[in-house]
């Protein structure tokens, strides 16, 4: 008790330790292993099993350079095809999601609209996000499968009796819609937080200068929430590239119709027990894409906002038309 100051810093590290240990054991090690496997010609024969000599069904031909990457990226490889599927499905969900979220966020924060029962609406639009994706997927499956309630409705408008789930466009639209429904609430809340961070005097002064609501939206709201918009965009991309549960439950492992619902992660899930090398290669590619997107998000978050705000505050409304 003689010392005047005691350093508590080490306790901080000690309390952080459990996280880092679990992270190393369960995240970092498999990650490094995946990189390692992606350079191996490594397969497993799942058509045989052995209890006493576990190595016998493993076919490991050792280091093979970039062959696995060549296989998945080359002709007949599944990477680009499934990347395209994933992107298309993600876009189908994301475009309406960002539009509706922006609209709702602006309405909810509008000083003059003063929408009543905001708490209620905010809860309701957020609610789908609380339900498990698989539960929603199963619900939609039973609605749209042949004989389902919505199948009967849509059947009236189509020329044949094939379920939307069995048509390329229909199946993608359903998955996109589920993603939209699950995430627009979350995005709305994020965007609202960003919009509420904007100085209200900006809106007031612009209105005094005669700006229309659409002008304030495009020239004040959008530029000022740009960092958060790009954050939403990029996190959604990272989530989208790992899309698996909804399309899998609607379309099965093969992602039919025509493999149009087959996402990147589905290939991994199908091949993980047998094609270890090539599956690891796909995982590594996804990791690289996600890492790049993550860096972009990091930059978008860290840049500008503080500077921008100061600059913009100083300027008068008409002067900042450009950006």
């Amino acid at each position, binding site marked *: 008790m003689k010392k005047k100051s005691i350093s508590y810093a080490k306790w901080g590290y000690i309390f952080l330790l459990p996280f880092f240990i679990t992270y190393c054991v369960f995240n970092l090690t498999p990650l490094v292993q995946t990189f390692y496997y992606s350079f191996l010609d490594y397969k497993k*024969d*799942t058509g045989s*099993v*052995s*209890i006493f000599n576990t190595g016998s069904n493993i076919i490991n031909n050792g280091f093979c350079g970039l062959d696995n990457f060549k296989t998945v990226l080359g002709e007949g490889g599944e990477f680009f095809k499934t990347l395209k599927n994933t992107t298309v499905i993600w876009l189908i969900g994301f475009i309406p999601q960002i539009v509706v979220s922006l609209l709702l966020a602006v309405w909810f924060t509008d000083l003059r609209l003063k929408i009543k029962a905001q708490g209620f609406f905010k809860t309701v639009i957020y609610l789908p996000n609380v339900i498990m994706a698989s539960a929603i997927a199963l619900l939609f499956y039973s609605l749209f499968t042949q004989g389902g309630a919505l199948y009967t409705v849509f059947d009236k408008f189509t020329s044949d009796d094939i379920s939307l789930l*069995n048509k390329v466009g229909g199946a993608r639209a359903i998955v996109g819609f589920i993603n939209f429904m699950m995430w627009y609430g979350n995005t709305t809340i994020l965007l609202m937080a960003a919009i509420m961070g904007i100085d209200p005097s900006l809106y007031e002064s612009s209105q005094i200068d005669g700006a229309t609501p659409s002008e304030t939206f495009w020239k004040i709201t959008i530029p000022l929430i740009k960092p958060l918009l790009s954050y939403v965009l990029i996190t959604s991309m990272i989530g989208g590239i790992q899309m698996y549960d909804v399309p899998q439950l609607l379309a099965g492992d093969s992602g039919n119709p*025509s*493999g149009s619902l087959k996402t990147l992660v589905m290939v991994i899930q199908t091949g993980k027990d047998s094609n270890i090398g090539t599956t690891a290669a796909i995982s590594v590619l996804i990791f690289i894409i996600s890492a790049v997107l993550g860096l972009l998000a990091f930059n978008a978050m860290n840049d500008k906002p503080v500077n921008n705000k100061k600059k913009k505050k100083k300027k008068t409304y008409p002067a900042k038309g450009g950006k």
Partner: protein
Amino acid sequence: MTNLKKMLAGALCLCMAGSMLTACGDSSDSDSSGKKADAGTNDGADENNGGADLSGKDSTKVYNIYCWNDEFKQRFEKYYEPVKDTALWDGVEVNWVINTNEGNVYQTKLDEALSTQVDDDMKIDMFLVEADYALKYCNSDASMSIADVGLTDDDTAQMYQYTKDVMTAADGSVKGVSWQATPGLFLYNATYARDVLGTDDPAEVQEYVKDWDAFKATAQKMKDAGVYMVAGFDDAYRLFSNNVSSPWVDADGKITVDPQIKAWVDMTKEYTDAGFNNKASLWDDNWKAGQKIDGKVFGYFFSTWGIPFTLLPNTLDKSVDDGGAEEVGNGGYGEWRACPGPQAYFWGGTWLCGCATSDNIEITKDIMLKMTCDKDVAKAITEGEQDYTNNKAAIQELIDGGYSNPFLGGQNHLALLTEAADKIDLNNKLSAYDQGCNEKFQAAMKDYFLGNTASYEEALEAFKTEVTTLYGNLTMD
């Protein structure tokens, strides 16, 4: 003081880390009955499937069974438990670990568990295998020969030879036994038969479906009357796939599509375009809906287990769980009939295998003896469940005793099944990869039938991609 604090903090850290580790180490035996599940997802099938916390228990006091649906569990509880050897079972409880067959989930989970058996404290005692992958476990050191379990040739004398052939390993030892034989029949809706064909007599209806030409002509008649001949794409699949000349995968790991399988594709495409089927896939809601008595589907190809396990529960208007009774007047009960159909075939089948590292072999022997070799139990199962048991003597006694099946309107379908069972020959028809090959092939061809893929060749290409992703060690031209 500081020491005490340090110790407290350390203990807390340990607790946190410990809780994380236990959360991750949860045993991976949860049941995952997906939407399509498989043969067996009866409603409420997922009660107490595994998941029980057995850590710290003595493995000899727990009898672990791996299976993929609750069919065996139901039989086990109803027919084995009353006659079990209570001395052996003293203090021993059963732990069911149920994982769905679809997508190889069951095999993956089982293989994972088997690979750690030697060191594991909790030993698997019995696992069940299906015809689609029986070979894999038969040729493995994971399964125990029934001679080692303690079954004699006399015990298995009444079994159908093919059920023993399937599980006979290269060295001649039999690795598993089954309580059922699974010859298939064509089950048809008697109401539609009377309306369209003018008769519901099985012998006369058989004339209308005796070969594929007659089958097609009848399908046209049914269509004119607004009824689908079969529910969907995969219904007739087993009739072709069980009559192949070579298995899916040959000794070099090369996948070939047998001409019989191609014939199934051609026929189903023709039926789909002509509107003879209702575009259902096996096990989906639409497929099940057709089994109602007004389901607009004339017939289903079912193997023996299909009657009690699938058709019966699906055709009842008021399910047994809701208090409905299995009696005439409840939905389609009593309004189905069976006839041999255009081609002899079998479908499925479940074999019990003793696990090589089991520490409860005496119990395994007791189960196998009573469930698969005992004539009285076999008779009881057939009478109670309409299942076709793997005991020739029991079946013969039932036939001689004037067996009639109220579900089939009093028909004696055992006689038909006996004829079919004698014809089953599985030599050179099975491979260890059939589950995945069948599933992936049906999925790829469904796209072709629906017109999403333009040609058979294109669908075949999709199948090739899928199946070689699933089985990395196989090749296909």
